[in-house]
C-alpha cells in the first residue's frame, strides 16, 4: 500500500477513534491516537496475514495487543483491514457488543486472539504462540504491542528473560514509548531508566524508531526488525510516539489517557482530521 493511502487510512482511523470514545463518553483516545500510524502500517504493510480469521492462525503472522485499553485503535484497524464491518465500530462499549471496553475473545470478535486489559500479560501469551509456531514448523512471525508504563508489571520481565534464554527469534515486541501513564509522566510515576539498556541487558536485539508517528520511519524500522528475526534473539522495537497525536489539544499531556472529548472538542478534533475513506 502506498504511503499516501496509509496516511489517508491513518486519518480515517483517527476519526474512528475520536467518534467511538465520544459516543459512549468513555475509552482511551490518547494512547490510541499515538499508536495509529504503527497499527495501520503493521496491519496493512508489514504483516503477512489473511482476513479469514482463524484462531490458530497457522502460516500467518499474528499480533497480540498487550495494552488492551487502546482498543479503539485496535478495533478500527481490524475493521478497516477487513476482519469485520466498519459499521460495527458504532457498538463500541455498548451492551451486547463484540467490541468490549477491552479486547476479548469471549464475544467472538474476529481478529482478537487473547483478552487484554489487565496489564503485563501479553508478552507471555505471545511467547507461547511463538513456541507453538516453532513446534508447527511455521516460519511466520509474532508481533506484539506494549505500553511503556506497562513495563512496570513484573510479569513482563519474566517473559523478557524467557525470550532470550529460549532463543525466541520469531517475535517482534514493540514498546510504545510515549513517556506517559495515567498518573503522569512515567519518569515521575516510576522512573524506569533506559528501557533500551534494560532490553539489551536481557540480550534482546533492540531497534529504535525515533519518530513513531511517521509512516516512512515505521516502515523502515519494522523492515530492520524483520531482518533481525531468525537469528537466535528476540527483537524489541522502541517506538517513540506522541500520545494524542493528530489532535493538537490532546498532545503533550497525559490528560487524554482515558478521557473522551465533549461535543465541541470532538468537532475541533475532527476538523483537524478531515474524512478520507468515509466515516462508519
Amino acid at each position, binding site marked *: 500500500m502506498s504511503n499516501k493511502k496509509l496516511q489517508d487510512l491513518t486519518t480515517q482511523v483517527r476519526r474512528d477513534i475520536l467518534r467511538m470514545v465520544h459516543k459512549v463518553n468513555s475509552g482511551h483516545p490518547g494512547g490510541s491516537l499515538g499508536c495509529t500510524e504503527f497499527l495501520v502500517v503493521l496491519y496493512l504493510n508489514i504483516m503477512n496475514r489473511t482476513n479469514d480469521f482463524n*484462531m*490458530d*492462525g*497457522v502460516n500467518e503472522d*499474528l499480533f*497480540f495487543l498487550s495494552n488492551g485499553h487502546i482498543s479503539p485503535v485496535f478495533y478500527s484497524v481490524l475493521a478497516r483491514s477487513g476482519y469485520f464491518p466498519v459499521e460495527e465500530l458504532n457498538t463500541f462499549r455498548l451492551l451486547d457488543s463484540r467490541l468490549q471496553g477491552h479486547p*476479548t*475473545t*469471549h464475544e467472538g470478535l474476529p481478529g482478537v*486472539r*487473547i*483478552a*487484554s*486489559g*489487565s496489564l503485563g*500479560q*501479553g*508478552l*507471555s*501469551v*505471545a*511467547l*507461547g*504462540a*511463538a*513456541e*507453538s*509456531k516453532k*513446534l*508447527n514448523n*511455521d516460519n511466520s512471525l509474532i508481533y506484539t504491542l506494549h505500553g511503556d508504563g506497562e513495563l512496570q508489571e*513484573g*510479569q513482563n520481565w*519474566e*517473559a523478557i*528473560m*524467557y525470550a532470550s*534464554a*529460549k532463543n525466541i527469534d520469531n517475535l517482534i515486541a514493540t514498546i510504545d514509548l510515549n513517556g506517559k501513564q495515567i498518573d503522569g509522566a512515567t519518569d515521575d510515576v516510576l522512573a524506569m531508566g533506559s528501557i533500551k539498556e534494560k532490553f539489551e541487558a536481557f540480550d534482546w536485539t533492540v531497534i529504535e524508531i525515533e519518530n513513531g508517528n511517521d509512516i516512512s520511519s515505521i516502515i523502515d524500522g519494522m523492515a530492520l526488525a524483520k531482518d533481525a528475526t531468525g537469528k537466535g534473539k528476540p527483537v524489541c522495537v522502541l517506538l517513540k510516539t506522541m500520545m494524542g497525536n493528530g489532535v493538537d489539544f490532546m498532545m503533550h499531556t497525559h490528560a487524554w489517557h482515558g478521557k473522551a472529548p465533549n461535543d465541541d472538542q470532538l468537532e475541533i478534533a475532527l476538523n483537524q482530521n478531515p474524512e478520507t475513506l468515509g466515516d462508519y
Partner: protein
Amino acid sequence: MKTYTYTEKKDTRSGFGAGLAELGRTNPNVVALCADLIGSLKMNQFIDENPERFFQIGIAEANMMGIAAGLTIGGKIPFTGTFANFSTGRVYDQIRQSIAYSDKNVKICASHAGLTLGEDGATHQILEDIGLMKMLPGMVVINTCDYNQTKAATIAIADYNGPVYLRFGRPAVPVFMPEDQEFKIGKAIKLTQGSDVTIVATGHLVWEALEAAKLLHTKGVSAEVLNIHTIKPLDDQAILESVSKTGCIVTAEEHNFLGGLGESVARVLALNKPTPQEFVATNDTFGESGTPTQLMEKYGLNSDAITKKVIKVISRK
C-alpha cells in the same frame, strides 16, 4: 457392604506423571510446562520421551500461565505443572484473563494441594484453591483420590476442550480405584450403597470416607459413599438421589469449608431438597508444619472426624 482394600500406597502426583507420559505417546498436541518442579510433579518420563514438547519456564509462574495460553493458539494442549498454591493464588489474574476469559484449552495441573504437603507448612499448603478456581466461569475443577484415578483423569482432560484445574497431592496414599476405570468429568462414583447417611468426599478424603463407612457399619450405621472427583460441574443428580434415600449428608475435603466442595453441595441441597449437612473441612484457618497424618488429625480431616460428623448429622434428621 462393599469394602475396599489396597495392596500398595502411591502418590497421586505419580498418577499425573504416568497419565502425562501416556498422553505424550498418544496425543501429539499435548505439551507440558513446568516452573522448576519437574521432580515434584513427576514429569520426567514425558520430558525424556518428548523433549521438544516440554517447556521449562523457570521460577516464573505468571509467565508460565501466559505461555500456556499462547501455546493453545496453533492447536497445542498445554499441561502446566507446579504446586497448587503457585498454580492458583499466585497467578489468579493470569488464569482469569489469559486462560478462563480467553477460553483457552489449558490444563492447570496442581500438586501438593492441602495440608498433606506436610512439613513445609502453611506458605505452601493452600486450602483455598478449589474456591478460587471454581469461581472462574467455565473452569472445570477436579480433585482426584488416588494414583489410578489421577492417571485416568489426566488422560481424560486432554479430550475435553476448555480450561481445567486438576488438583492432586504429595503423600503416598492407598490405591483402591481400579486401574482400567473410565473417567467421566462431572460424574460421581458411588463406592458403597447405604441408607442412613450420604458421605460425599473428594481427593484424599475419599479413602478416609471408606474407612469411616467401614467403622460405621460395625456400629450398625449404613453409609453411602460418593467419590466426587469433579467439584465443577458438580453431579447434582447423584447427590440428590442419594440424600433422597439417606436424608442427611456429610461432605469431606482437604480444603477450607469456605469455597469448597461442601458449599457447592449445600447450594444444590438448598435449591432442591434442604437436608441436614455437616462439613469435614478446615475451619477458616491456615495450616502449619507437621507430618501429613498429624495434620489431618489435628485439623479434623480423617476417618475419625468423618465418623463423628456422621453421628452428629444423623441426630439432626
